[in-house]
């Protein structure tokens, strides 16, 4: 129970404030244009650095299946501050994807309360407060790459010129300039996943939900995309919730790692991942990195994740 205590508000999370100072100059290319939604139009006071992006309290979710009830989430509590990069790790069936879907209002909790960007999950969805990246790119095959990125913008009613400008900007952000007129099948899996990340960022949501986005890719591509994602996060200052199966990936990317365990799906450990943010792939060989990876592994073992 003690492990479920929120610790994002503890004073010893200097990386959040530190990073805010850091990313000032990088913020301009992406952060300036906000959505025209009423909720977004409100100026966000800089004096609230610790506004919670996600606030989950005692959330439970039970599925009714033909084999009986399944406790996908059992009494889960978690607070994520703005600008954090939080990874969820655990074996299949531990509820990490369900957690993300609950935050995204793709599934409704059976009990408990949930605030996303300070409002209910449904309200956050209606305000287009988050971008979602799935395990598969899920691009629309009949649309060119450019038009795939424009799709959420079309849905949200951005002007034509705004759509064009944003598509170009976010394609550049994921290093895919020049592929505008291609169709999805003409791109490799890693490139397609980058397009889907650009699509999720295109309407500039404050929160990015990523459900094993690199799970289907080979390790070389995955390493490369991990580095790019980290740079992207530094540039944009989004809050990221990231589901993964990979310990090195979680440690490499996160400010905090949430270790989960199945039957019932619950949080068994929250690990601060507080070594410096200027991480490169070589960081993975350092003692600090290995120490945190070891702690994640211990947490997974304590949750009987290896007992299958």
């Amino acid at each position, binding site marked *: 129970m003690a492990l479920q205590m929120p610790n994002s508000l503890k004073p010893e999370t200097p990386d959040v404030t530190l990073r805010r100072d850091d990313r000032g100059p990088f913020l301009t290319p992406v952060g300036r244009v906000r959505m025209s939604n009423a909720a977004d139009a409100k100026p966000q006071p800089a004096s609230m650095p610790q506004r919670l992006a996600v606030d989950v309290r005692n959330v439970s979710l039970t599925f009714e299946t033909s084999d009986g009830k399944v406790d996908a989430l059992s009494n889960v509590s978690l607070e994520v501050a703005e600008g954090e990069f939080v990874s969820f790790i655990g074996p299949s069936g531990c509820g990490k994807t369900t957690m993300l879907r609950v935050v995204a209002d793709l599934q409704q909790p059976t009990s408990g309360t949930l605030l996303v960007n300070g409002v209910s999950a449904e309200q956050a*969805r209606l305000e287009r407060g988050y971008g979602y990246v799935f395990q598969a790119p*899920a691009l629309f095959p009949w649309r060119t790459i450019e038009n795939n990125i424009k*799709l959420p913008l079309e849905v949200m009613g951005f002007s034509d010129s705004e759509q064009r400008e944003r598509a170009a900007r976010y394609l550049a952000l994921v290093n895919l300039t020049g592929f505008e007129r291609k169709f999805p099948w003409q791109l490799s899996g890693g490139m397609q996943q980058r397009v889907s990340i650009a699509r999720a960022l295109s309407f500039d949501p404050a929160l990015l939900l990523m459900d094993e986005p690199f799970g289907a890719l080979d390790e070389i591509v995955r390493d490369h995309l991990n580095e790019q994602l980290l740079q992207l996060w530094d540039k944009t200052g989004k809050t990221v919730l990231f589901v993964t199966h990979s310990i090195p990936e979680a440690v490499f990317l996160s400010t905090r790692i949430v270790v989960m365990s199945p039957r019932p799906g619950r949080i068994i450990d929250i690990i601060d991942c507080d070594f410096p943010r200027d991480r490169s792939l070589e960081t993975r060989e350092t003692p600090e990195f290995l120490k945190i990876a070891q702690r994640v592994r211990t947490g997974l073992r304590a949750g009987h994740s290896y007992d299958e």
Partner: protein
Amino acid sequence: MTNSALAFPVSGADSLRRHPLVARYAPVATIVLALIAIWYVATVLMNLALVRDGFEREETPYTVSDLIEGTMSAERPLLPAPHQVVAAFTDSVFGYPPTAPRSLVYHSAVTLSATLLGFALGALLGVALALMIVHSRVLERSLLPWIICSQMVPILALAPIFIVVLGAIGLHGLLPKSIISAYLCFFPITIGMVKGFTAPDPMQLDLMRTWSATPRQVSSKLRWPSAVPYLFASLKVAISISLIGAIVAELPTGAEAGIGARLLAGSYYGQTVQIWSALLASAVLASGLIALVGLSERIVGRQMGTRP
């Protein structure tokens, strides 16, 4: 010089075999030639008794070659020879002005207009029914059994009823035929489009939900484009069925024009050559219509980035 001259016949035959035109059309041509050969043999066998009786009735001496020649040129054979059919076909297509009542072009045009109107009506009805079925469980349960039942009743039994009922309310000529044609061809479109409208990936539907797209947007930006391949597959089936429907509709009405009327008149007067040339006309018409649908499918496919 001598070497290449010697080598020529071998490489010549080889390159001929590999010529793209030969490679593409040789299998089809072989089948066609085989069918024509079988047809000629069947012509001789089936008309033999008829021709022999003719010779014996007139008490003229005959040889085997006389007999065989006779089977190929009988005026009212049981089975006309291919060249007779082709001759009658070209004569009735090119031998008369297109508006003359003996011109196959005229009759084909009459049937074609009923086919196209019926096809359009059937396509609209088919898509409308599919939309209703996809959007409402209640409609699915109440409509689908009737839709399936409608296709179990033989159209030959229904067609006269349709004609009489529609005639009683003052509908004559083109429209009743088109309605029968539509009645036959809506079915594959409904089935195909139900499949097509439910084809989108759950992830794509979830994405639309995360962008809080309206049902109308989900329909226009996801369901319709996903259904396009299914639409063309069912249109190809439907267009040939609607031609059959139009021809069948001409049979019980005693229509004075149309391919069906030609078939009926041919069978009244034992004009087998006329029947076969009318059949040939309907085959040509059907292939033309299917080719047209195929062409539009290719054009649309190119727009939608279909993998070549």
